């Protein structure tokens, strides 16, 4: 019945079933449309709520002589927020009023402020409201410069940098906007979200088929190779649909703010998405086949997914210094290369030799991962053990 090991028709049949069954699922709808909408909505609402405070009452003990007014609305963050300043004589009384919710915070400006820059803030929260610190900062600058500089200089001190960035390449130079600088980070997150979400779909699809005891039947009709390739193909199409929908979400922002998306970066991101997905999916296909319960599978799979976060953790280093040895190392590790290379390429032009080396490592890793995973898959899909640990799984693999 199996004939050839690789049968394109069977791979397509398995792949198309994966696409149809996954896009129809509620989880897909939630992960692709509802989830991002909720996240975006909540972050907008959250940031509005953060600065949507009508009044803040701040107690102060001014030993420096700041001449704090009774109220002020001068701050960049909470445009509609009025700060009321109430003078205190004792810290104890201020603390008591904070606890009684008469005031939101108590500021103590020591006598030696000029020498030390030290200001003490008492508050019920672990970090004070940024509206308070922003206003206080302005009041201090005003006091320090009063009568010493003109209005123009004063405004420059308040807002010293109005940066315009131009990226220079052999083709010339072009102005970068704030959003275009954020684009590489967006790419990396998109890649992370897509690979994580797809890996999750892949693992649950395999574990579910084992749990429902369909694997044995499937293997009678298609070889392990066809089954694996079909699943990976199908779920990668699901991923492309997902990314497509996310890009559609981002399109209005890109158009409205005229964000220039470099074609080469977009191609790079697509190539490394495919390479990264193929690497992770082949690896996870083999590993997840060992487990019959999603809970057992997550023990092993979570660390692999977390490794992906490494380049995102090093994102600052990579973007500020794309040729740092850490950035280079991450570009040659198959787990992290897709992120590292896309991030680096988006801030600098990588030498062709580095790109070729990284791509070769990825391709070789994918091939090795596929070979190992097929072996693992053949053993794993017929294994029905409860509470399988990694140690036990390794023992079984070597026994078989």
């Amino acid at each position, binding site marked *: 019945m199996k004939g050839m090991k690789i049968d394109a*028709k069977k791979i397509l049949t398995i792949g198309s*079933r994966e696409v149809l*069954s996954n896009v129809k699922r509620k989880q897909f709808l939630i992960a692709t449309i509802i989830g991002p909408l909720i996240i975006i909505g909540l972050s907008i609402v959250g940031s509005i709520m953060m600065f949507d405070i009508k009044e803040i009452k701040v107690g102060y003990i001014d030993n420096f002589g700041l001449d704090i007014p009774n109220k002020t609305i001068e701050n960049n963050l909470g445009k509609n927020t009025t700060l009321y300043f109430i003078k205190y004589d004792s810290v104890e009384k201020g603390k008591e009023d904070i606890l009684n919710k008469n005031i939101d915070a108590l500021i103590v400006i020591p006598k030696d402020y000029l020498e030390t820059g030290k200001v003490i803030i008492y508050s019920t929260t672990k970090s004070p409201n940024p509206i308070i610190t922003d206003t206080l900062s302005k009041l201090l600058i005003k006091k320090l410069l009063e009568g010493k500089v003109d209005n123009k200089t004063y405004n420059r001190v308040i807002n010293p940098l109005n940066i315009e960035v131009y990226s220079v390449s052999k083709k010339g130079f072009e102005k970068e906007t704030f959003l275009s600088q954020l684009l590489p980070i967006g790419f990396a997150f998109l890649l992370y979200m897509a690979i994580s979400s797809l890996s999750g779909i892949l693992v649950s699809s395999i574990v579910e088929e084992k749990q*429902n*005891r369909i694997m*044995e*039947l499937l*293997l009678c009709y298609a070889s392990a190779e066809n089954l694996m390739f079909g699943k990976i193909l199908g779920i990668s199409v699901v991923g492309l649909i997902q990314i497509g929908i996310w890009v559609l979400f981002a399109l209005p922002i890109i158009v409205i703010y005229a964000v220039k998306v470099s074609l080469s970066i977009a191609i790079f991101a697509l190539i490394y998405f495919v390479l990264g997905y193929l690497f992770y999916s082949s690896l996870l296909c083999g590993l997840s086949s060992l487990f019959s319960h999603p809970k057992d599978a997550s023990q092993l799979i979570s660390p692999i997914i977390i490794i992906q976060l490494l380049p995102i953790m090093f994102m600052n280093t990579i973007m500020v210094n794309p040729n740092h040895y850490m950035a280079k190392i991450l570009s040659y590790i198959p787990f992290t290369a897709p992120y590292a290379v896309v991030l680096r390429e988006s801030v600098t032009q990588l030498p062709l030799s580095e790109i070729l080396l990284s791509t070769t490592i990825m391709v070789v890793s994918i091939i090795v991962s596929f070979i190992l995973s097929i072996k693992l898959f*053949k053993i794993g899909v*017929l294994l029905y053990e409860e509470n399988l640990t990694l140690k036990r799984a390794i023992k079984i693999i070597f026994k078989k």
Partner: protein
Amino acid sequence: MKPKIVVKNLTKYFGDKKVLDNISFEVYEGEIFGLLGHNGAGKTTTLRILAGIIEEYNGYIEVNGRIGYLPEERGLYRDEKVVDVLKFFGRLAGMKKDEINKSIDYWLNKLKIANYKNFKIKELSKGNQQKVQFIVSVIHNPDILILDEPFSGLDVVNVKLLKDIIFELKNMGKAIILSTHQLEKVEKLCDRVLILKKGKAVHYGKIEDICKKIAYIEYLENGKLIKKEMPYNEALKILKNRAEDIIKFEVGYSLEELFLKEIGEGDEDRC
């Protein structure tokens, strides 16, 4: 007649454990062949090898025709419609669209579940899910049908329905391999059997021949009454040589009696 399946010296190890030890058998078209043995005897491993699910083994296997397989471990896509599941497996088996549709309608009617065509699998009773599973194994009109415990989970009416269908398939010239614990069904259905014990073939052939292989004999030896079960040929020698001492001579058991005497308690390990 050319056999549909030829197995020669089939041996399979899982790690150090030998789960199949040099077994050989043949299955012909128009034959129902029973594979018997206790849990852990190696039946499922043998069937999985024949179905191509286990690819690594020692020995020679020849399969002449398409295989349909009903595994012991049953399962289908629970959230999908009966028709979609059947179409998927039809496509996997390499069938054309119109062939699939015809076959689906034929088998759903035959198994009296045509009304459930657009139901989700999870909405069906266990027995009806079992019928859908059976259709998956025959949808592509296979030449060889491997049925691992086909009657489990079915009520009396549906057992009869399935038995009739199996006979019908046999009459159509299909080679059918049947593995079941229900020995009375094996006796009624199977033409020949292979009995496995701890991975070794202990009996192979027609059921009546196998059952005749064991004889029960009671005879006098030096004035002492001896009661023994022994292979038929040995018992026959005693009968010929000392006919005057023989008190009782019985040949043949039911398959169930033979199974209990020969196989005894099985190894409960799964293979």
